């Protein structure tokens, strides 16, 4: 079974020659889902028993691979290096002489690694099994017929403002923006105003800059309107035009 296909050529063995084209390595790296996957591959490739890993050979092969990556300045996930260190540690522990007559027998240093490899392997298999399940859109399609929506009495849509708020909270938490993105009333009113300005532009193509400000709104209102225009300018959604020096300033949709 080839573990990688490079330029149409299947690779059934880890390349042994000195020079490997960098893109080939990239393919190799992408073929593995992490250090456990790579290790599992090295073990399976040689038909070795997972319960009795020749830790020396495996460590050597693993480190060779890592070094090759390193030499080619390939950015290697830290997990690969952690595994290399773990293998080296197991190897050194296995080289130590067996404690003569200790009260408690020390367990095989490989045990933890074997447990992890086995655990990973069964989920790797489970993933393949899940991929085999008949999937909607790939293997089967949901059978539907057209159903006239017009004839239906008002469709009830189950959504209330709380659902919407929770959705917003979650999506913002997820965006993981370190900058505080408190939505303050003021900010929102600027956004509200931005929408209003765009509305006017849709209706009139150009509007006078000064028409945006009304006496009734007071200073606060003027500030909000001004900030809205600045925001829209920043977002490249509108342009300011002036036909003559000191002439009236107009707003128009960008690119119009």
């Amino acid at each position: 079974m080839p573990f990688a296909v490079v330029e149409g050529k299947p690779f059934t063995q880890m390349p042994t020659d000195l020079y490997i084209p960098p893109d080939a390595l990239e393919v190799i790296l992408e073929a593995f889902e992490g250090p456990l996957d790579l290790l599992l591959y090295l073990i399976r490739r040689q038909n070795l028993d997972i319960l009795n890993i020749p830790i020396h050979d495996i460590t050597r092969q693993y480190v060779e691979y890592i070094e090759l990556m390193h030499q080619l300045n390939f950015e290697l996930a830290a997990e690969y290096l952690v595994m290399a260190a773990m293998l080296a540690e197991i190897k050194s522990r296995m080289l130590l002489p067996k404690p003569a007559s200790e009260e408690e027998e020390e367990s095989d240093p490989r045990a933890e690694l074997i447990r992890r490899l086995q655990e990973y392997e069964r989920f790797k298999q489970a993933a393949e099994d899940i991929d085999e399940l008949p999937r909607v859109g790939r293997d089967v399609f949901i059978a539907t017929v057209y159903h006239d929506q017009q004839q239906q009495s008002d469709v009830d849509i189950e959504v209330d403002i709380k659902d919407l708020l929770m959705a917003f909270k979650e999506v913002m938490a997820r965006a993981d923006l370190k900058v505080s993105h408190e939505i303050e009333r003021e900010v929102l009113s600027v956004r509200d105003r931005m929408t209003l300005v765009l509305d006017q532009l849709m209706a009139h193509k150009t509007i006078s800059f000064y028409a945006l400000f009304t006496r009734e709104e007071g200073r606060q209102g003027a500030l909000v309107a001004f900030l809205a225009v600045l925001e829209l300018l920043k977002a490249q959604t509108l342009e300011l035009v002036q036909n003559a020096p000191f002439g009236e300033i107009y707003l128009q949709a960008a690119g119009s």
Partner: protein
Amino acid sequence: MRHLEKFTYRQQAVNMEIKELKHTIEAALLAFDEPLSAKDLLQMFADQEITVTDINQALNALEADYAERSIELKRLARGYRLQTKSSVQHWLQNLQQQKPKKLSRALLETLALIAYRQPITRGEIEDIRGVAVSSKIIHFMMDQDWIRVLGYRDVPGKPAMLGTTKGFLDHFNLTSLQDLPSLAEIKDIETLEQELDFPDQAASENTQQELKDES
């Protein structure tokens, strides 16, 4: 599907029986939302020796099959479509009423971002959410008159800027966008939620139910 399995698609000059053809065409009409034209159906069997006459014969047979059933084959300008007969409308309406449409999480998040961050482009929504926004969602919200295009940004691709409508405010009983709670206020709901601390699935569902009841 004995007949179907008998040949592979590589084989030429094998004619499907009309019955198989009929069942396959039926499956195609049921599988796709859009009407299928005779040309589409022919294309489906491109590697078979199927003619327009065969297709028409199969469609006629299908139509006859549906005579006593509650769906029918409709010939539209764009092609063929299966649809429910109006005689079952009453029953379907019963079902419609007791099964209010639930909005998907993707839709709710998209709508929330549009409400709070308008004017916002689809690309910006995708950046924040980290996943693509489907056109289906955008169209649905436009059909519901919750969102609209406010204008176009003057950058390559001229992306549309989306914003909410009056219909959105009406639906959520808001007088203006400023009535939307601030993020700080939303966080209070979050604290409330955490205090409840749901230990398992059942409890989690319970909590959501309570939240709904509360409102």
